[in-house]
């Protein structure tokens, strides 16, 4: 069984968490858009929406993600794999920028392989 998880790994944990906040806002904006007539929601609008009952579901869904330093990410993924009894993990690296995403790919692999990252 292959289990899926979201990942954002970065050398700096706060950087990873900031990337996560950005992609979450982008994801929410995409979900609540209704085409060209949708009003321009500010980041504050989106952040507020995530605290409402309706938005909290989306917020929680994306919280099921491994976000942080390579060690934090590897710890999460190891626990997740064990509890899901997964033979393999398929991870979606969610960093908004491609450079950060590629770094996340590298850091996660190295950390899971036991390297000191």
């Amino acid at each position, binding site marked *: *069984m292959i289990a899926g998880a979201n990942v954002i790994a970065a050398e700096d944990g706060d950087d990873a968490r900031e990337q996560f906040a950005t992609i979450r806002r982008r994801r929410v904006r995409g979900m609540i858009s209704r085409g060209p007539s949708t009003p321009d929601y500010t980041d504050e609008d989106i952040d507020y929406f995530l605290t409402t009952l309706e938005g909290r579901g989306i917020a929680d869904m994306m919280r099921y993600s491994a976000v942080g330093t390579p060690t934090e990410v590897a710890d999460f993924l*190891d626990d997740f794999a064990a509890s899901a*009894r997964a033979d393999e993990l*398929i991870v979606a690296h969610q960093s908004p920028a491609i450079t950060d995403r590629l770094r996340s790919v*590298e850091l996660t692999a190295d950390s899971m392989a036991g390297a000191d990252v």
Partner: protein
Amino acid sequence: MSVPLSILDLAPIAPGQTARDSFAASVALAQTAEKHGYQRVWYAEHHNMATIASSATSVLVGYIAAHTSTIRLGSGGVMLPNHAPLAIAEQFGTLETLYPGRIDLGLGRAPGSDQITMRAMRRDQASSDTFPQDVLELQGYLTGESRIPGVQAVPGAGTNVPLYILGSSMFGARLAAALGLPYAFAVALRAGCAARGGSRVSRRVHAVGAAVGSVRDRRRERDRRRGR
């Protein structure tokens, strides 16, 4: 020894960027993944979404395969209700023929999208109802033992592209088990669904994991008793 890792590439089109930019990023991602020991990269199928470039999944898989060497590539997943099983067998039979031993076919049941997109795909709400039979028909084409007399996939017949059932529920897990196929469980990855809380998600993960595990254990026990 940690669990093997694979990648799901959502092929996002970032604000201010184009689909072409997304494809360039996907190439870089697959090449990096290959260099760092990931098993496979899968691409989803999403229609009519301005923020996602992977709508023609088999075409994208072919493009990425041509820019990589060894990493497995596949669909995560082809939404089978959107397609004729024969057409998918032909597409993935072509991929397997061009890139032997590297192609996976992950299959999902949700036609996804809204009514207008579904109709533009020439599908309707009932299209998902025949998912199990459609998987079997597709499997017949790829194994070369077609379930439709007089119809075969060319290329496709005998390519035996590995199939995976994708889902986020017990239904999918049970179907995979019934078909003897591996299950890719992605509740934590689903966008646009109204999850009602992280703890409920984690309970579902545990439940599916336990169910899949117990089916797999029973099957292994049965195989062991049969001397396989």
